[in-house]
C-alpha cells in the first residue's frame, strides 16, 4: 500500500448497513415470509413473527439536488423514523411500520412532485447514464430523454396494468454504462461517423500503437502528416463507430451533431424467471437527436409499449411475447421497417440466421 500521512483515514469502505436498518427490519432480518402488494408503489412484507414492514416507492429523476435528498429525509423522519432506501433502479423507498402513514406519505410525495409506483407489472424508472450532463463520449443526452419518455409513460409507472414487468434502460454511447443490453426496451446513443483524427495533437496526447490496437475492426493505421507528424488514419468503410478509439485517445473525435442519435433495442431480460436471460435485439437502427424533448424517440418507445401491452399475454415479458409471435409479426404490428442493418454481421453472425424451414406463411 502507498505511503499515507498518519492522520489521514483511508480504506474504511462503506459504513455498515446495519446502522441504517429500520429496527423492525433488523428484528426480522432473514425471516420474511411473504409479501403482498397493496397498491401501485405500495407493498408490505410479513415475517414469520407476523410483523409487517410497509414500503412506499417513489420515482426520482436520479439526478438529485441536496435539497431534494433532504426533503426525502424529512419525509422519512416524519413518517417512518427516518428509515429509507433507494432501489437498483434509482427509485426511493420509504420503510414504514405503521400503515396509517402510507396515505399521508403518498400525499406529501405527490405534493412535492414524486410519483408513487414502479412496482409489479408497471414500467419502473429508467436506468440511465450521464449524457451531456457529465460525459465526453455521449452520442446523446441521458436525463433529458428519460424525462421526456417518462412523462409520456407516467401512467404506466403509476399503474400496474401491463402483462408483465417492463424495464427500460438508456445508455448514451456504446460503452453502455446503463447496461442496457438486457432490457425490455433499450435506448442507446449511437455515432454514425468515423472519428475525425486531430492530426496536430494526436502524437502529443496518445500512444499511436494503443490507438491502432484499440480498433476491433482494424480500421486504424499509423500514418504521417505532410509536415511529418506521427498520426493515424482511419479506413472509413471499416469503421462501425464503436468509439473505442476515442475512449483510449481524445484526439479521435466522434461527436457529430447531425449524425449522432439514438437506436432502440427490445426483448432483453435479466431474470431467469420462466425464460433465460437474453440480450435486447435491434428494433430501430437510428432516430436523430431532437432536443429538448426527442419526439421521435418518445413516440417510438410509446408505440412499442402500447403494441406490447395490447398483444402480450399475462406474464410474458417483451422478449417472451416476441418469441411466441415471431419477429416478422413484431415488425408488422409495430410498423417498424426491417432493414439490412437488423441482420447481424458481427462476430456471431450466422448463428442468428433463420436456419430452418419453419416459417409462418
Amino acid at each position, binding site marked *: 500500500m502507498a505511503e499515507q500521512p498518519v492522520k489521514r483515514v483511508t480504506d474504511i469502505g462503506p459504513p455498515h448497513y446495519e446502522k441504517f436498518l429500520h429496527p423492525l427490519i433488523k428484528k426480522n432480518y432473514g425471516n420474511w415470509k411473504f409479501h403482498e402488494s397493496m397498491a401501485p408503489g405500495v407493498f408490505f412484507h410479513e415475517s414469520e413473527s407476523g410483523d409487517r414492514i410497509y414500503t412506499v416507492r417513489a420515482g426520482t429523476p436520479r*439526478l438529485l439536488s*441536496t435539497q431534494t435528498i433532504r426533503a426525502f429525509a424529512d419525509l422519512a423522519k416524519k413518517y417512518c423514523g427516518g428509515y429509507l432506501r433507494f432501489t*437498483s433502479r434509482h427509485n426511493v423507498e420509504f420503510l414504514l411500520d405503521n400503515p396509517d402513514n402510507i396515505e399521508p406519505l403518498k400525499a406529501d410525495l405527490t405534493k412535492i412532485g414524486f410519483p408513487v409506483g414502479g412496482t409489479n407489472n408497471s414500467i419502473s424508472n429508467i436506468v440511465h447514464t450521464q449524457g451531456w450532463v457529465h460525459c465526453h463520449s455521449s452520442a446523446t443526452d441521458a436525463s433529458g430523454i428519460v424525462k421526456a419518455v417518462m412523462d409520456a409513460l407516467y401512467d404506466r409507472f403509476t399503474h400496474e396494468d401491463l402483462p408483465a414487468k417492463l424495464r427500460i434502460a438508456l445508455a448514451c454511447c456504446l460503452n453502455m454504462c446503463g447496461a442496457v443490453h438486457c432490457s425490455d426496451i433499450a435506448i442507446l446513443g449511437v455515432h454514425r461517423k468515423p472519428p475525425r483524427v486531430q492530426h496536430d495533437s494526436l502524437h502529443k496526447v496518445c500512444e499511436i500503437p494503443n490507438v491502432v490496437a484499440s480498433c476491433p475492426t482494424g480500421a486504424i493505421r499509423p500514418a504521417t502528416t505532410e509536415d511529418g507528424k506521427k498520426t493515424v488514419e482511419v479506413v472509413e468503410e471499416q469503421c462501425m463507430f464503436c468509439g473505442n478509439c476515442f475512449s483510449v485517445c481524445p484526439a479521435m473525435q466522434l461527436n457529430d451533431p447531425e449524425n449522432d442519435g439514438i437506436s432502440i433495442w427490445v426483448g432483453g431480460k435479466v431474470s431467469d424467471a420462466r425464460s433465460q436471460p437474453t440480450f435486447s435485439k435491434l428494433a430501430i437502427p437510428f432516430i436523430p437527436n431532437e432536443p429538448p424533448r426527442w419526439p421521435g424517440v418518445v413516440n417510438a418507445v410509446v408505440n412499442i409499449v402500447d403494441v406490447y401491452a395490447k398483444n402480450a399475454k399475462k406474464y410474458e415479458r417483451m422478449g417472451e411475447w416476441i418469441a411466441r409471435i415471431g419477429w416478422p409479426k413484431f415488425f408488422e404490428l409495430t410498423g417498424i421497417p426491417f432493414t439490412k442493418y437488423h441482420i447481424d454481421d458481427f*462476430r456471431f453472425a450466422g448463428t442468428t440466421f433463420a436456419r430452418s424451414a419453419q416459417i409462418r406463411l
Partner: protein
Amino acid sequence: MADTKHETKLLDELEKGPWPSFVKEIKKSAEKNPVGHDLLGQLELSYRDKISHWKHGGIVGVMGYGGGVIGRYSDVPDQFPNVAHFHTLRVNMPSGWFYTSDVLNKLCDVWEEHGSGITNMHGSTGDIIFLGTTTDQLEPTFADLTANGFDLGGSGSDVRTPSCCVGKARCEWACYDTMKLCNDITQEFQDELHRPAFPYKFKFKFSGCANDCVAAKARSDLSIIGTWKDDIQQDDKAVAEYAKNGLDIQKDVCNHCPTKCMDWDGSKLTINNRECVRCMHCINVMPKALRPGKERGATLLMGAKAPILQGALLSSVLVPFVPEDELMDTIKELVDRVWDFWCEYGKNRERVGELIQRVGMGNFLDAIGLDAIPEMVSAPRDNPFVFIQTDEQEAE
C-alpha cells in the same frame, strides 16, 4: 465565483410534464451554488449544438487512491467558468442502499460545502455520485466523507463498487445474505478497489435469487445468484387458496415452468424438484404458497460485460452451487486464482469474460484449477476443431 444565470429556453421545456424534472433539480441546487447555473448554461449549449461540451477526462484523484474520481473539464470554460473543472466523486454506498435521514443530511452537508450539491442517487454501478467539483476540493471532500464513515468507490482498472439486492433485509426469497456478503467482499478488497492493478475493471454483484434484482448476470464479472438444493417449500392449503381466488394454476404457473416439471390436477400441485431449475416463476406467482428450499446457497457465474469490444457477454456458470456458509471463502479463493491468471495473461482493457473467450474455457478452467462440468454449457461444442492433447502431450 461569478454568479451568472444563463438563458435556458430549451431546457425549460424539460420542466414541463408530470415526471420529476432533473432541470428543476439543477436549478434548485443553483439557488445555493452558482455552479448549477453554468452547468445549465453549458447543457443548454449542448442542447443547441447537439453535442457534448465536456473534454476527455483527465486523471485526478485523492492521495493514495487510483480510483473513485472521474476528472472532467469543459471545452467552453470561458463561457462557463464555474464548470471549467467539474469532477465527479464516486462514494461507496452502504449495502442495499439503506440510509437514515441523518446520514443523508450529513452527506448533503459535505457535498454542499465542497461541491455543486448535485448528485446521482445512484450511479448505475451503485455508488453515490457527487457530481461536479474542482480539483482542490477533492481532498477536503474525501476527508469529510471519511470523517462521516464513508469512503470512495471504484473507477479505472480496479475492483468496482460491489452492489447487491435488498436481500434478507426485506425479501422473503433471499437464499443467502446478499447485503452482508456484499459488505464483507467490499471490505476484504479495499486495496484492490482503491488502487487499480488489473488489466481492466472487475465487478461483483450479488442477487439473492434468480430474479436477479441487481441485474448481476448481465453486468458483473462475478455474479453471485442465490439458489437452493433441496425441494421448494410448498404449502398446499395456500396453493388451494390461490386457486380459489381465481389464479389459473395450470395456465399461469405450470405452463410457464421452463422444465414443465409441475403438475396440477385441479386440486393438488406436484413439483418434480429434481427437474426444477430454480427459475423462481412459480414462487413469484404464489409467494404465500411456495418458497425456496431450506438448503440454500448461491450459483457463481462469471464474465458479464457491456459490448465494447467483442460484443456484450452474459455471465456463465462456473460453480453451480456453493452453500451459504462457504460463500465468502469460496469467492475469495476463486477470485484469487482468476485475478492471478488475468493479471498474467489478460491484455490491457480485456475483461475476464473476454479473456475466457480468447484463451478458451477449457484452458481457463485448467488455469484456475476447476474441473469442466456439463452445467457450464448450454450444449457441448458442435464443431470438430478440438485442440485435443494426446497422452504424451498431456504428460509433457
